[in-house]
């Protein structure tokens, strides 16, 4: 279930998880999440990069037997979303019915609650993706 003292662990990632900030190396490669060494060229000169939050669904599933801690939300859709800048992120989809999801569906990032803990009361928020409103 994870231990109660999770504040620091999650706080560390709030820029990435609330704002979808990733990394960009000196040679222009962008990636998510940010890491100290560019996974494309190996450059160690990496700075923060703000993604637009727009992307499309390239694969998805409906989680019916979730890991403990997520039972309350079941069933929930989880997808690989390719951001318009290129990198792929894994995230839950929201504001969508399972049978509406399709390959190439255009989605945009929103901030949503991901999980609550009973013991310490932390509420985790992060990016999810919803269909782009037409």
């Amino acid at each position, binding site marked *: 279930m994870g231990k109660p003292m999770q504040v620091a662990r999650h706080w560390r990632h709030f820029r990435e998880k609330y704002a979808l900030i990733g990394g960009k190396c000196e040679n222009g490669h962008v990636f998510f999440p940010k890491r100290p060494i560019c996974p494309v060229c190996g450059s160690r000169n990496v700075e923060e990069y703000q993604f637009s939050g727009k992307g499309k669904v390239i694969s998805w599933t409906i*989680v019916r037997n979730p*890991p403990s801690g997520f039972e309350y939300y079941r069933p929930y859709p989880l*997808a690989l979303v390719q951001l318009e800048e290129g990198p792929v992120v894994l995230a839950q989809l929201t504001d969508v019915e399972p049978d509406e999801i399709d390959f190439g569906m255009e989605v945009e990032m929103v901030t949503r609650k991901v999980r609550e803990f009973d013991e310490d009361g932390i509420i985790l928020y992060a990016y999810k993706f919803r269909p782009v409103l037409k």
Partner: protein
Amino acid sequence: MEKPVIIGVGMVPVGEHWRVSLRDMAVEALLNAMEDAGIDKVDSLYVGNMASGSFIEQENLGALIADWAGLGNIPAVKVEAACGSGGAAVQEGAKAVMSGLEDVVAVVGVEKMTDAWPSDATRYLAYAADAEWELFHGASFVALNALIMRLYMKTYGYTEEDLAHFAVNAHRNGAKNPYAMFKKEIKLETVLNSPYVADPIKLFDAAPMCDGAAAVIITSKEKAKELGVPKDRMVELAGFWRAIDTINLANREDFLTLKAARVAAEKAYKMAGVTAKDIDFFEVHDAFTVMAALSLEALGVAEKGKGAVLAKEGQIAIDGDYPIQTMGGLKARGHPVGATGVYQTVEAVLQLRGEAPEGIQVPDAEIGLTQNIGGTGSNITVNILRRV
């Protein structure tokens, strides 16, 4: 460099062992292997295990198992590479022998999964994924594999039925293996009518939660002769390697190539001096049906995108050109995660000694390959075994 040999194997039947503990299973498998090898002591122990700390609150398995098996004050450690721990432990044992530092090495793979609640077990398995960027978002291990399966079907035009053939084949073989968890044949409809766990993966596309332990004894040819092991009881570990890929599936360049398996297989083939065509049977890591297809492609048995065709056409059966999962695979024998790679090794040894159960012995098997996946393809071991 002189290749090591396996001179003893042991295992316990895979299942839901409510009355038996991790240490009991591990010790039983280990003593079976030592008895099979005709020895009463070993120089060191390598334990393949994925998540004993999570499942049963027990780490330090090296000390636990060596102590309870009465092995004395030897070196003993746990080797962890997620569901690929067993295959990796075999390699660490082999390397110890090849280095000349240790003469006779025991490797035991063990996992006790049924002491945990199913949703907790699902969580522990997801620890093999990236905790911050996958499990954080509620990804189960099945879900990550489901993303791959959906993409595989879409990219190459396969249906759920096409992949279900892998499960049917595994159960057909497992039905004849007394150590398998499911000794029962199934029909395509059984797979197709089973409920979704994470669409499009259904219950029968996935390996079960279970308990098990398997063990092998590894030594040099010279030492084996000294111990009086007859040549036909030796199986050479002719080639082996392992490699990693991105731990986070989303960061992978190509979701449908098991790059780590490709790299490991190329090195292992080279070390053994063989190609995919020379292999008589393959024990691949079919934790999910789609992983069997991707594995056959990564090992060079099928072209990219054609792995599922081999299942549809029956070429993966015992009498086919590329028999796989000869004792039931992960699907039917069962997948006690950290033990799986050692079960595969034991099964390959039995095949090569001609001691496989009736109906699932691959005729005149000379060379077998085992492939053990940790994570969603992030840590993959390939071992090639050959009759001496």
